[in-house]
Each structure stands twice: as C-alpha cells, then as structure tokens.
C-alpha cells in the first residue's frame, strides 16, 4: 500500500491501475482479474514475445472447454462469465471467504485467486459438476438438502466443494475435524451448527454410496 498522503494531495493520487500493476509485478494474483472483460476493446495489443496463448483448453466438470482467456483472468471469472457456470460465487475476490471454492485435481482452491492460464490440462470441478447428468444429486448435496443446511446459500457451493475435497483425504471425519477442514470458508449467515450437521450427513451419504 502506498503511503497515505496529506489530505490536500489525496485526490486520486494513488491510481488503482498503478496499484494493480504493482501487485502483478509482485507476482500475486491481480485484482484486475476481478475486472471482467467481455470484449476485445482493450485487448488489441499485439502479443509480446514470450506472452501466453489466449486460447486455452481446460477440463471443467468432465468436459473439455476451449476458451479465450486473458493472461490475468481468474478461474472464477472464466467459470462465471465465459462458461456460464454461475454456481461458483464471488464473496470477496481476494481469498478471504471461500465462496468461490472449486476442486482442481480434487483439491479445493479459491477460484478467485487462481489464474485460468494455470489450470490448463488440469481437472476443474465446480458445484455444477457434482450431480450426475440425469440430475441425481451428489450424496453431499443430498445431505445438505436432507438437513436443510445453510440459510441464504451464497456460501453454500464453496462449502460443499471444500467438504467434498476434504473428504477425499479424510472420508470419516469427526465433527471437529470437518469443522477444521472447512474453516477456510466463511458463512456470513453464520448458521455453522446446521451447516456442519448437513455436511456430516453428506459425508455419511458418501460413505454409503
């Protein structure tokens, strides 16, 4: 963060773009990923030597999808705005809440903080990929339905993906273990009791399935 200037001088002295550039230079995921680009208007610049290929193939929910991706584009943006998979939510866009969690090669990741370019040739599963093609719910989804888990559900897909990922390494967690396993997800409705009960029910369903 740049130093706070005198109020006389604070008039937009710190340009957001300067900040973003700084962040990119530092190698972190850029907030520009959040700024969604639908058109080619500002993407006309010729690709510099060594720059990345724009057309990439990623495997999403078992399907190979070929998409035109900016180099700073986050996976959440690609899923939501290029592939129409809006079940993945953005609660913060800065790795603070987990609403955007998806599985990448079976491991939960915050998709707001993963560059789409980095998941070529990897398997991405979002909430839309859990139920089977005939609409039969995944046992975890079934557990949440059975227990009426969550309230507004804006955090729900992230929690479900985290839980499914965690259960791959610990299929029979205790209540406390599962709580730790999903503690990277924030629920602002905060009904954590029923959330945990529902996800444990899902875990039980998964073991039985």
């Amino acid at each position, binding site marked *: 963060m740049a130093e706070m200037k005198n109020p006389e001088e604070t008039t937009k002295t710190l340009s957001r*773009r300067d900040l973003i550039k700084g962040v990119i230079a530092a190698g972190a995921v850029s907030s520009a990923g959040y700024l969604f680009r639908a058109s080619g208007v500002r993407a006309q610049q010729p690709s510099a030597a060594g720059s990345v290929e724009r057309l990439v193939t990623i495997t999403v929910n078992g399907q190979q999808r070929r998409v035109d991706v900016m180099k700073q584009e986050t996976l959440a943006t690609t899923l939501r705005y290029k592939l129409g998979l809006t079940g993945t939510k953005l609660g913060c*866009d800065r790795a603070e809440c987990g609403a955007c969690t998806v599985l990448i090669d079976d491991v939960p990741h915050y998709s707001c903080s993963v560059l789409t370019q980095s998941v070529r040739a990897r398997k991405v599963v979002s909430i839309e990929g859990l139920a089977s093609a005939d609409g039969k719910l995944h046992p975890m989804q079934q557990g949440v339905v059975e227990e009426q888990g969550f309230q*507004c559900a804006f955090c729900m897909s992230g929690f479900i993906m985290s839980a499914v990922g965690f259960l791959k390494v610990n299929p029979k967690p205790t209540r406390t273990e599962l709580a730790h396993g999903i503690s990277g997800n924030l629920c602002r409705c905060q009904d954590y009791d029923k959330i945990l009960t529902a996800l444990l029910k899902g875990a039980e369903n998964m073991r039985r399935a």
Partner: protein
Amino acid sequence: MPTNKVNVPNYRFIGKNYTTPDMVAKVTGKSKYAEDFRAEGMLFCKLLLSPMPHARVKRIDASKALALPGVKGILTADELPPPAAFITDDGVMIPPDPRAERGLTNEPLYQGEPILAVAAVDEETAAAAIELIEIDFERLPFAVDPLVTLSPGGPNTRNEGNVWVVPPPAPPKPGERPAGPLLPDVKEFKWTDAEYAEYKQGKLPVSKPSMEWSYGDIDAGFKKADLVMDETFVTPNTSDQTLETRTAMAYWQNGKLFVHCSTQSTAQTVPAIARWMSMDTTNVVVISEYTGGGFGSKVTSGIILTVPALLSKKVNAPVMLRISREEEHFLGRARPGLHGRMKAGFTKDGRIVALDMFVVCDGGPYGPQGDANASGRIVSLCYTPENMRWRGINVITNTPPRGPQSQPGGAQGVMIMEPLLSNAARKLGLDQVAIRRINAPSGKAGIGPAIKGKRDHVTSAFVPEALDKGAELFRWNERKNQTKKSGTKARGIGVAVSAYSAGSIGFDGLFVIKPDGKIYVQTGIGNLGTEAMIDCQRVVAEVLGVPWERLEITWGSTAKHLPWSCPSGGSQTIHAMTRAAHAVSMDAKLKLQEIAAMDLGGKPEDYEVGGERVYRKGGGAGMSLAQAAQRAIKLGGKYDGHELPPEIAKMTKASATALAGQGLLAVAKDKYKRDGISNSYVAGFAEVEVDLETGTYRITDYVGVADVGTVIHPRAFGGQMFGRTSLGWGHALAQKWVYDQHYGAPLAKRFYQNRPPTILDVPVSNFKWAAVDIPDPETPVGARGIGEPPVGAGASAVLNALADALGEQIYRRAPVTADIILMALETGKPGDEPLTAHI
C-alpha cells in the same frame, strides 16, 4: 447434537421439519442471485468513490474517459432525479428530503461515497475510464468520531451542524388523517467546557440531548434505591457484511424499469425504487429470486441500484454494477455504535426502581438512525425499570451510512445494560439469573415512554419461563459454583436477557386453486435465507388440510403477480405473513364452502374442507378442490378473482386482476385484531474459557431459550438462533471499525481486517437452543419472529461470562480482544481506551 426440539401439539405441518422447495436449486448452483443474470448487450459500470471524508466537487473533466474506446457513458449526481415527494400506497405523503442519501453526490460526506459512474463494454474499460477522470475537490471539515464533533470547537460533520433533530409531528386536525413524517433538521450541538473535562476523564458527559422520553418518576425511584450504579459502555460499529454484495443489473423495456437486485423484500422494493427514481410504481419490476444475506442492510435493497438503472436509460443498454467487497464496506450499511451512560437504582433484592439512560449514536452522514431510540425502548422492556428516563443524541459523522442490522438499537441497549446489571448483582450478592428474573417482563409488559400517562404494551412475554428453562438446560445452579481458575486457564459463566420487535400486521395473501387441484401461492416476501418466505405458506396447507406437495409457490419477480407483502426486516415476516396466509386460507375455505353449498345443497357452514376436498360434515356429498376450481371459473365474480375486496393493497389488486379467471382465487388482507406490540425474547447462557497467558478466550458452551410463540419450522428456527447469536458473538469477540482519525480514512474494510466469526470461533458442537413454546395470544397461529433478540443475548452473555471469569475491571466497551484482557490482567484496570471511536 443438542436435543433441539419444539413442542407444538395438534398441527400437521406447523412445528414440523420439512425440506423447502428452493433447496435443490441452491445445492446445484442453479439458484440465481443478482450477479448471475445476463442480458443481451449488457454493459458494466464502475464507480468513482470519494477519496475524502467530506468535500465538495468543484469540477469534473471526463473528456479523456469518454474518448476511451469502449466507454458508453458517464453518470454524475447532476443527472439524478431531484428529491421528490412520494405518496405511499396507503396515502401517506413522504416529503422530499434534500439531505437524504442519493446514488451519487457532489458533496461526499464520507470517504468512499460514490461521485460518478462510467458504463463501458467491460469492467476493465470502465475502470480505466475512471482513472482518466479529473476532479477538483474542495476539502470540508469532518469528524469520524461522534465525540470529536461534540467537543467544544470541534468540526461540524455537515455544513449546517452535527446532530439530527426531529421535530415532533404536528397533531392531526380533527377529522383529518395524521400527517406524514416531518423532515429531520440538522443543528449544531457542542459540549460545555465542564462536559469536555468529564470526557477527558474517561466518562461520557450527559450533555444536552436531541431526543428524550420518560415514564414514572425517576427522582422518586432513585430515592427508594438501596444501590445506585453509574457506568459508561461503548458498543462497536459493525458492518452488515452480507456475503453477497449489493450488485444490481438494470434495463428498460417499453418505459418499464427492470431491476435484478439483492433485496430482503421483493414487493416492498418496488415503491422504494419508484421513490428513488421519481417514477410510478407500476413501471418498476423487481427481480430477486435469491438474496445472499441481508441482516437488515437490504430491507428494500440499496439506493446504489439507481446508478445502473439511470445509466441504462442514458446509454440505452442493460447495465450491471458489480459491487466489490471493498465498495460493500462503504455502501453495505452498518450498525451504529452507541456510547451509553447508564445510572440505575436497585433495591436490595435487585429490583430496578430507577433507570436514567443516555446514549450518543454514531449515526454516519445520513439519518437519523432509529437505533438510539430503540436502545431505550428495548431496555425499558427487557429489564422493566419501575421509573425510567431515556435521552439521546443522534450525531452525524463522516463515516459510511448506517442502517439496520439484526436487532438494531436493541442489541446495543442490551450490551450497555447487561454489564451494569451483572456488576449490581455482584454488589448486592445476588445470583445473576435471579436479578434478571426479578426484572424480567411477563404478560402484557410495558414498553417505551408514557404518552399522556399511558405506556404501550407487548402482546405477551414469558421471559421468566425462558430464564428458568435456560438455567435448567445450562445447569446454571451447578455450574455457578465451579472453580474459576485452574492453571493458566480461567472459566466463567454469564447470562443475558434480550428482546426485540417481532411482527407487523395488515398485509395481503393471494393464491389460486387451479383445476389441476393444486394451490398456486403467490408471495412478495424476499428469499433472504431465513426460509420465512416459504415457512409462512405452511399455514395454507395447515388450514386447508392439503398435502404440502400440492402447493406451488411463486416468488422472486414482481412481474409474476405477487401480493403486497411485509418488509422482511425487524423479524416481521413470520408473524405478519402467517397472519396473511391464515386470512387468505380462510377466504378460500369460505369460498369452497359456498360453492359446495350452491351445488350440493345446504348451508356453507355444513361443509368441511380437508383432504383436498370440500365435503359435508360427518361424511357425505362433496367435491374435489379441482372440481371446485372449475366451478369457481364458471361462477366468476369473487370466486375467480373478477371481483376483489376493496381493502387489499394496490399491488395485490393488480396481481389478483392478472390472475383472475384461472381457478378459485383467494385473496385477503390480514385484519385480525392485535392487542399490543409483538416482541420476541431470548435468554442466553454462555461459558467462556480464557487463556491467562495469551488473553485469548473461547466460548465453550451456549444455551439460548427463546420466547417466540409458536415455532413454525424448527430447523429454520434453530438456524436463526445459531446464526443471529453468532452475529452477536462477533460484537463481543472481535468486530469493530478502525479509522485513521486524522485523515478520516477507514482501515478495516475487508473480511480479513474485520473478520466475522468463522466456524472455529463458535461452539459449533456445544450449542443448545429451545423455545418456551407458548403461542402468542394475539395472532392466529401464535408465531413471532426470531431474527433479532439472539444478537444482544449472544454478545452480552459472553461479556458477562468474561467478567465472571476475570472480574469486573476488564473492559468498558466491546469487542473485548486479547490485548485488552492482557492489559487488564497486568494493570488491574480495564485494558481498553474508554471513549474514542473506531480504535
């Protein structure tokens, strides 16, 4: 898990768990929230936010921005419709308020207030355009701490002053209806030097108030008192922080405005938008199928949605405004912090005989906020002081706009009162449950001021019962003698009582029984996650005796012919809309009985409704709901909705008219009588364990017992008990704003800086809830809301438990963080700064 049960006899659906019909869409990701909608040719816009806490825009040069390829247009405050008078559906005139918040401004009153917006083909282009805009600002005086602006010579926070003053309403002339609300005025309030000196000593001066009320005679009360306590307590400002920000998308079609937004109340958002846009309500369509949390911050969505709406009109394309998490900090509303000074007189047995309450409300720039007054009303109800005076100042500060947050004002009132009550019990040698029980409201308890010698009262209160039940579940008597300290750990237990409004009246119900025999229920309630929208409809199945699966519920778009429904704020819904559901079900029942009598002979009252039929009592002739629906269409008139009752609201009338002729149309306004104001109550019990070496603590165990009348849907109810309690715990544990006072700049704007409790911060395996299960006597199915009182109980039970573990000299404000505890343990004095805001 805990044996969380309710005990409601003789109902088939009410009080039973079931799966709400929106669950499958939620778990599969198919549920669409505002940001999930796309429209053909949709543009994006970005906001330019004020970098200063108070300034005037002198000049805007957007030429470079407008020249950028892909930029479609700019919107400034000059293009907003001027504030106009608005006549509500029931004829009340809301006067135009030049000081009210608008979507954009030329005089930003807080850092982060939107100045202008740019629409472009994509967000990156819009953001780049924003960077190219040049603005000259003139700096104006500001204060982010309410006590700084009250100090002698302190800066004013608005040009005309620093405190809201609401003129008393003019008495109605005989025969005329009362006038609408009067506009609040802004005046300058400053302390005297003596008051400032008291502030310097860490005490909140009781200075000239901008509002006051009382009942009884507090001087006489204090004379009777055996113990008089005088304490100051400061509650935090906390952002509502809904996980879904207030993103909105708007477009126009044939002069009609369509808005996809995030709102707590679908039907009620129509007049709100109409007022903000200076439009007719019939030209506004609100689409909100799923809302990612509200907590009071989105009662009728947010005024920022006028920005994409106006831009869309200007550039003639759909426009989406995505609100980032940081922008949400500015626009997302917050609970105003209250500084409270409380003087209370007790008799030896703990009865409160006099209470003198004074609060300073940190109200942000737009207001005035109701929290200040509500804090007094709730304290007067929760602890039933025999004599009371309440005084307050609604201070304007250059910080983001406040709004309601679960138990607005009530939570702060409880947090101010509870530590004092605990200290009084210790001084008097009384048990903490006993002192609350002797002061607890019961029956038609009084609330608020005496007006012409008479106080309002509540519909019912069973707080002693809630305390008894909670003490038993918590094993209070056993645990109060437990050893507090062992090694490096200390344990303590606390109890707190809380209350809040829990229901309004007078809304409409609407459904159609179609020839397929199904009941198509229309609802204008918002879908904000509490499931109240659906739970209320259980009453329809209950009254008509039809299987739940035969109900189809339509919600989420006012283009789908929805009735006038209550705002889902202040926990009104389960009360207001079970009443409306009951009224409309009774209307259907009567129509079914009349149709049966017409066709099959006899009188309407000879017929019974149940089992998807209307049939003669004691068996015999009857017809199915499907047949009755056919007959209703043939009969026309009131039976199929071609004739409507005069008392239903304008929106309901239009919706019913659109649905007429499709079957048996039932429509009714809730006209049931109610004696008293509906309030709900919670008694909370907490245990904490403090690590004496690090100052950290955790809540090890919690019991909440609610007095809410009939519980409609136990699991949803339990969700609210845990969720709202947890929101309260956040106030005790960690949540607050932090400001750089010198620059008026907020420092805690994101989750990681202002973190709500996570699953690891709450006793997720040691939480019990229960209800006293006594129906409210003033409403058909006896149900009241639960969304509010758990907050204050949760926060205060934890703070009281901390004091039990460590002693009184720990804190004078909330939240209580590890550093405060360590400092207190080290010095033997409270470890916090007494009065400064936002630190």
